[in-house]
C-alpha cells in the first residue's frame, strides 16, 4: 500500500470517527442541559426590527417563524404543557413579517384560544391576532369566522360573536353559513344546537386533519352531553313513576321508557349507576365531554383522538 493511500484511509477513518464522537458528545451535553433548549429564546423579539433586518426577504422569514410557532406549539402540546409563553410573540412576528399569511391567523388563533392542555389559554391574544388578520385581509371570511368562534367558544360573548359572523357574511364570496350562524347566535347562543352547528361548520370548511379530528371529537362530546342529560332526566322520571331508580337500562326498556339500550357515539353502552347517574364507559376516548364523567376523573394531559377522526 502506498504512503498516500495509507494517509487517505487514516484521514477518512479519523474524520468519520471524529464526526460520530462529536455528535455523541453533543447528545451528552444536551442531556445535561435539558432546560437550555433554544426554543424558549426569542433572540429578536421586535417584529418590526426583524422585518427591517430581513432586507425585503420577509416572506421566507415569516415561513420560518410560522414553522417555528408550529414546532413550539406541537412540542409543548405533546408534552402536555400548561404554559406557552413564546407562542403569542412567535405568531405576532410571523404575521407582521407576512400580514397575508392566512394560515398563521387561522391555526394561530386555534392554538392560542383554548384553555390548556388543548391550547395556550390566551383568548384575548387570539382575538388580537384574528383582528390584525382582518385588518390586513378584510376580504377573507375565514378570519371573521375564527374571530366569532373564539368569542363564542372561549369567551361566551355571544353579541360579539354574532357581530363577527355578521360582518363576515357581508364579505364577497363568504360561506352562506356565516349568515345562519349570526342569526343563530343572536337567538339561541347558549344552546347545544348552536355549538353543534359551529363545530359542523368547522369540520366542513377545514382541510387540515388535526382540526377535523378536533371538530369530530367536539361533535361527539356534544352528543354525549346531550345523551347523558336526556337519559338522566328519563331516569328521574322513571324514579318518580316507580319510586325507585332502575337497576339497568334493560329494566327501563322493559318498562317501555326506552326503545333500546343507549350507546355513546363510539358504540359503547352507557353505564347506569345505582344513584341514577349516567356515565360513559371509557372517558379517555371521549375528550371534551362535560357530562357522564366518573367522579374524580382526571383527563389525560393530551386529548386522545381516534385515527378515523382525521379522515
Amino acid at each position, binding site marked *: 500500500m502506498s504512503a498516500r493511500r495509507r494517509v487517505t484511509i487514516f484521514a477518512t477513518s479519523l474524520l468519520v470517527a471524529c464526526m460520530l464522537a462529536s455528535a455523541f458528545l453533543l447528545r451528552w451535553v444536551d442531556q445535561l442541559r435539558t432546560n437550555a433548549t433554544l426554543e424558549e429564546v426569542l433572540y429578536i423579539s421586535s417584529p418590526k426590527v426583524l422585518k427591517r433586518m430581513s*432586507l*425585503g426577504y420577509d416572506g421566507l422569514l415569516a415561513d420560518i417563524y*410560522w414553522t417555528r410557532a408550529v414546532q413550539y406549539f406541537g412540542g409543548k402540546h405533546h408534552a402536555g404543557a400548561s404554559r406557552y409563553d413564546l407562542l403569542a410573540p412567535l405568531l405576532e412576528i410571523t404575521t407582521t413579517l407576512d400580514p397575508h399569511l392566512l394560515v398563521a391567523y387561522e391555526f394561530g388563533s386555534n392554538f392560542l384560544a383554548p384553555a390548556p392542555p388543548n391550547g395556550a389559554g390566551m383568548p384575548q391574544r387570539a382575538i388580537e391576532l384574528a383582528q390584525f388578520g382582518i385588518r390586513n385581509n378584510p376580504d377573507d371570511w375565514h378570519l371573521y369566522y375564527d374571530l366569532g368562534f373564539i368569542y363564542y367558544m372561549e369567551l361566551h360573548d355571544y353579541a360579539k360573536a354574532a357581530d363577527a359572523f355578521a360582518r363576515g357574511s357581508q364579505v364577497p364570496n363568504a360561506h352562506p353559513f356565516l349568515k345562519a350562524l349570526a342569526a343563530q347566535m343572536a337567538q339561541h347562543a347558549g344552546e347545544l344546537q348552536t355549538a353543534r352547528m359551529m363545530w359542523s361548520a368547522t369540520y366542513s370548511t377545514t382541510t387540515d386533519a388535526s382540526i377535523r379530528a378536533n371538530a369530530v371529537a367536539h361533535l361527539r362530546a356534544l352528543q354525549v352531553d346531550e345523551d347523558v342529560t336526556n337519559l338522566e332526566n328519563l331516569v328521574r322520571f322513571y324514579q318518580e313513576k316507580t319510586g325507585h331508580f332502575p337497576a339497568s337500562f334493560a329494566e327501563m326498556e322493559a318498562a317501555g321508557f326506552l326503545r333500546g339500550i343507549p350507546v355513546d357515539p363510539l358504540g359503547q353502552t352507557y353505564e347506569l349507576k345505582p344513584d341514577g347517574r349516567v356515565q360513559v364507559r371509557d372517558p379517555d376516548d371521549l375528550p371534551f365531554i362535560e357530562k357522564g364523567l366518573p367522579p374524580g376523573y382526571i383527563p389525560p394531559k393530551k386529548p386522545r383522538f381516534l385515527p378515523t377522526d382525521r379522515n
Partner: protein
Amino acid sequence: MNARIAHIASNTFREAVRDRVLYNLIAFALLMSGAAILVGQISIDIERLVVVNLGLTAVSLFGVVIAIFIGIGLVSKEIEKRTLYTVLSRPVRRWEFIVGKFLGLAGTLVVNTFFMAVGVFLALLYVSHHFQRADGWLLVALYFIILQFLIITALALLFSSFSTPLMSAVFAFALFVIGSFAEDLRGFAAMTHGLTRWLATAAAYLVPNFSALNIISSVAHEQAVAGRFILLNTGYALIYATMVLCGAVLIFERRNLK
C-alpha cells in the same frame, strides 16, 4: 452589438463558467428538493409558500453574491494578471471593455437564474402536483430579480474600476443593504425639514431602490402585478444600471493604468 463588446462579454461568460460559478446550482438544487420534501412534515399548510419564498429568495441572494464577488474582480483581476494591457493594446476602447464585462456577467447571471427558475418550478410542481394561472407571476418576480442583478453588477463594476476587490465588495454589499431600505430612507427624508430634507431626499433617490424590485412575498400570495409597475421598474433598473455604467466608464477612462 459591437463585435468587440460581444467578444469581451462571451469571454467573461466563459471565464465565469470556468471559475465554476454555475456550481452554485448544485447547492440550489439540494436546497429546493430538501425544502420541498421537508417542509410538509415540519409545518402546516405552507408547502407552496415555502417553495416560492425560499426558491425566489435563494435565486436572488445567490445571484447577488455572484454579482458582487465576480463583479468586483472584473477589472481588478485583469489588471492584476496584466491581461488588461493585452486587451487594451488591441483596437478595444476602454468603455467597450467595461460594457463587455458588464454584459458577460449579466449573461452569466441570466443563465444561472434560468436554471434556478427551472428548479423552482419543478419543486412547485412536486408540492402542488399542478401549475396554476397565478404561478405565472413568479416569472415577473424572476424578471425583477434579474433587473436587480443588472444594477448590482453595474455597481460592483463601478467600484471595481477604482477600488480594491475587498473595498469594492464592502461598498457593493453596503449599497445593496441601503437599497433594500430605500423606502425607509424616503420616509425618513419626509420627516425632516430644510437642508436636511433636501440632502436626505437626494440620498434616498441616489441609492438604488431594491425594495420595489422585490415582489417575492406578493407573488407567493398569488397577487397580480400591474403591467405599469413592470414597465416602470424595467425603465428604472435599466436607467439606473446605465447611469452606474456611465460612472464606471468615466472613472476607467481616466484611470492611469501604467
